[in-house]
């Protein structure tokens, strides 16, 4: 039997997309490699999920549970312990190869694919940290999983590199478990985490944050014995004489998340150099028609609520595609202009554009006040003032179709700083 939509990944994104596509009448099959649904939410036992979607503050597992309930209520087909390994394009759709603990090797036919495989954590090797390579240096999310899922601490004296949200959350979490958290170093002059996490996870526990600092040495033959941090100049070069040493047994890295697009390996899908996910239009459709992506597999989100909203839109779009309602004719670029890190979507499908597009984007620098401006050629077609902007926080702007002057001239989004 051919499935209409095959969803890869059963986290917040995959579940929301599957629910929405199924509500539109599609035959959906969701595959999840883990032993349970919910994805990364299962290990995020802290509060702060659901403020937008449910208007209340939930823990990660609670947020996941609500969606898993809805998912089971709709009787959507799914398989756990099933890892997708490859996708092949065939005339009338795709064949997905997956390996399952219960069913063995699977070759599954489908009309459309939703990639919702989440993200992985950048490692020590990727940022090329110098020094020894003892045990005790690990991504913060791995430590979080060991602690919250398995019930084990990975160390007792901890330093954290990178002020991403996972690092901040883990600083507090390890402290509460009795570990001594010596500090957090961030190479940028500003934090990469949400402001609320800086306050609630570091300030409230007197954990020092060293901005414009990075780890420049790691010592320890077999087990980590210590790290050295140094201040960096505006070119990220360590400044000599600013060394600080910490005797720690654990260095947690919270130095970025990267969309997991491994199953795209054998396909020729256009990838975005900044998001590291696929390039998509407003339907979350990649450069291969019929393949969609959403959630952290597309670009890294800080709030699960945005993942849910985005994935619902993606699920609806996939349903329109399967029903033959979307005809891709013209892709108009939405470019990242001044002070914009990236936009999403990067293209607008003008043949199938009715109503409003939710554009998501990140700024490249902190500002107290500024204005977002979308231009088409010289013409300003949309503007929005905003306050307290930071690269760590995703921004959103609705683009109204009626404002477009034509379907030829590419759009550019700029961020004009009013007060830094």
């Amino acid at each position, binding site marked *: 039997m051919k499935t209409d939509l095959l969803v890869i990944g059963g986290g917040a994104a995959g579940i929301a997309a599957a629910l929405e596509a199924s509500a539109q009448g599609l035959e959906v099959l969701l595959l999840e*490699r883990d032993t349970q649904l919910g994805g990364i939410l299962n290990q995020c036992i802290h509060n702060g999920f659901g403020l937008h979607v449910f208007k209340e503050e939930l823990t990660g597992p609670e947020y996941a549970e609500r969606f898993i309930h809805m998912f089971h209520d709709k009787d959507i087909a799914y398989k756990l*312990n099933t*890892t997708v*390994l490859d996708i092949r394009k065939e005339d009338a759709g795709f064949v997905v190869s997956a*390996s*399952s*603990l*219960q*069913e*063995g*090797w699977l*070759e599954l036919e489908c009309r459309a694919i939703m990639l919702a495989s989440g993200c*992985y*954590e950048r*490692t*020590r*090797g*990727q940022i*090329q*940290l*110098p*020094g*020894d*390579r*003892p*045990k005790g240096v*690990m*991504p913060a*999310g*791995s430590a979080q*999983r*060991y*602690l*919250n*899922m*398995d*019930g*084990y*601490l*990975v*160390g*007792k004296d901890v330093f954290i590199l990178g002020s991403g949200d996972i690092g901040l959350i883990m600083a507090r979490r390890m402290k509460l*478990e009795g570990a001594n958290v010596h500090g957090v170093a961030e190479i940028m002059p500003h934090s990469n985490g949400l402001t609320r996490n800086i306050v609630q996870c570091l300030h409230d526990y007197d954990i020092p944050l060293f901005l414009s600092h990075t780890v*420049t040495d790691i010592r320890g033959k*077999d*087990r980590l014995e210590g790290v050295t941090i140094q201040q960096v100049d505006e070119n990220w070069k360590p400044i000599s004489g600013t060394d600080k040493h910490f005797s720690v*047994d654990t260095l947690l890295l919270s130095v970025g998340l990267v969309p*997991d697009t*491994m199953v795209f*390996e054998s396909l020729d899908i256009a990838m975005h150099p900044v998001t590291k996910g696929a390039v998509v239009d407003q339907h979350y459709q990649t450069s291969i028609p019929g393949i969609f992506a959403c959630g952290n597999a597309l670009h890294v989100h800080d709030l699960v609520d945005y993942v849910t909203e985005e994935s619902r839109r993606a699920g609806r779009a996939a349903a329109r595609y399967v029903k033959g309602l979307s005809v891709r004719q013209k892709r108009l670029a939405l470019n990242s202009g001044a002070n914009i890190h990236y936009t999403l979507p990067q293209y607008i499908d003008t043949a199938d554009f009715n109503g409003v597009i939710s554009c998501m984007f990140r700024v490249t620098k902190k500002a107290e006040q500024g204005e977002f401006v979308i231009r088409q050629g010289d013409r300003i077609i949309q503007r929005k003032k905003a306050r307290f902007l930071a690269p760590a926080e995703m921004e959103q702007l609705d683009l109204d179709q009626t404002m477009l002057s034509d379907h030829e001239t590419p759009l550019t989004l700029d961020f004009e700083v009013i007060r830094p």
Partner: protein
Amino acid sequence: MYDFIIIGGGVTGALIARTLSRYQVKVCLLEKESDIGNHATLANSAIIHAGFDPEPGTLKARLGVRGNAMYETLHKELHVPLLRTGAYVVARHEDDVAILNALYERALKNGVEGAKLLSGEQARKLEPALHRNSVKVLDLPSTKVTYPWEVALSALENAVSNGVEYRLEAEVVGIVRTDKVYAVTLANGHALKSKAIINAAGAFADKVAGMIETHVPYKITPRRGEYLVLDKSVRGFVERVLYPVPTEKGKGVLVVPQVHGNILLGPTSEFQDSPSAVTNHQADLSMIRQAASTLAEAIPFDKVIRTFAGVRATSSAKDFYIRQSLEHRGFYHVAGIDSPGLTAAPAIAEYVVETLIKQDYDLESNPDFNPYGMQYPHFHEASLAKKRQMIAENPAFGNIVCKCERVTEAEVLMHIHRPCGGHSVKAIKKRARAGSGLCQGGYCEGTVVKLLARELKQPLETIDYYRKDTPILMAETKVKR
């Protein structure tokens, strides 16, 4: 009482053990680490060099060229992976051309097969990533790439299946000879006796020699080489090994395609005091990026997934130092085995056993010697039909543990329980490749820890990352979900 004790479980010691197991002798290999091959054999460029640069007539030239050819047999018998890449030695300025021409002559003298000179333009047609400044190129089609660590492992495992004993965490700290018998003391206090000793202790060989020789005929000055590893998604960026024209300091920074699809950039070359320190230095890593960029165009540095370093056993003898002690009969030095030591290893083993040892000892063939090593399947590389069959026979093949390298639970279990099995996270990483990919174990490390604990019937918090007493999980918490 052993006939031979081999000190050192790198590729040299392991292949000597295997060669000795062709005869009816009692052999024990001693390795100080908790797993074999964790020094130079783990951290090198993995190239089976053609033999173009050692001076003709030296052991490095002779054993290098012979060793290169012997890898074809090792591939058949021990199933060691072999990527027949070929290589280009690249002259990037007019000044390099004279040296390149001389290397070509040397390659011919050393008996390197198929060596020829190409113009930069010709070479760039076949290797488009080659730097556009390349003037002239020495083509060395017999160059290959292997997975060095697996060469050592499969050689030792084959030796063990043919009767050799081995001990891990067995550091030799003293050697005395009385009445023609060597007594070897280990750090843990144990003592072993043997008629003969083979010193294959890599960068530590002079220290081991110093335990018995009043005059050690060579001094080892450890020389560190650092590397960057590119993710396997860059497969095909180059097909061949790229070398710059060598200098005084060695072969220089290379671009090396690996058997698993990754690309290595490096090594650097820095003398250091320690034979074991494998620290990465910011300056070395920057130097690699810069030097590699003069060999190839547009290297995808954003695909770096790891850094590492290895230590070469560079000796004052210049050539390999392979001979019997002048003071102590039956004590064999196999020392100064720096590059091309991996290439030469099978030929070194042959030379040590068939030429040196046979001069002094009568060796009787072992009629039961089986040259064939065990074959461990790679699920991911199997055909669709084969995959289905493997899962049908063993459902654990259906459970993907490492998503990046596509390693299944069945493979992890196999590598825990094989005769030279791995019992730490890193030992499994080296055998099964779980954790060697893009996410560097982010997905699978926890699963590997759990599988090890289950299979070894040990508590989770005793599963080590690598050496003794390096557990990943330090303390159980009160809250359990």
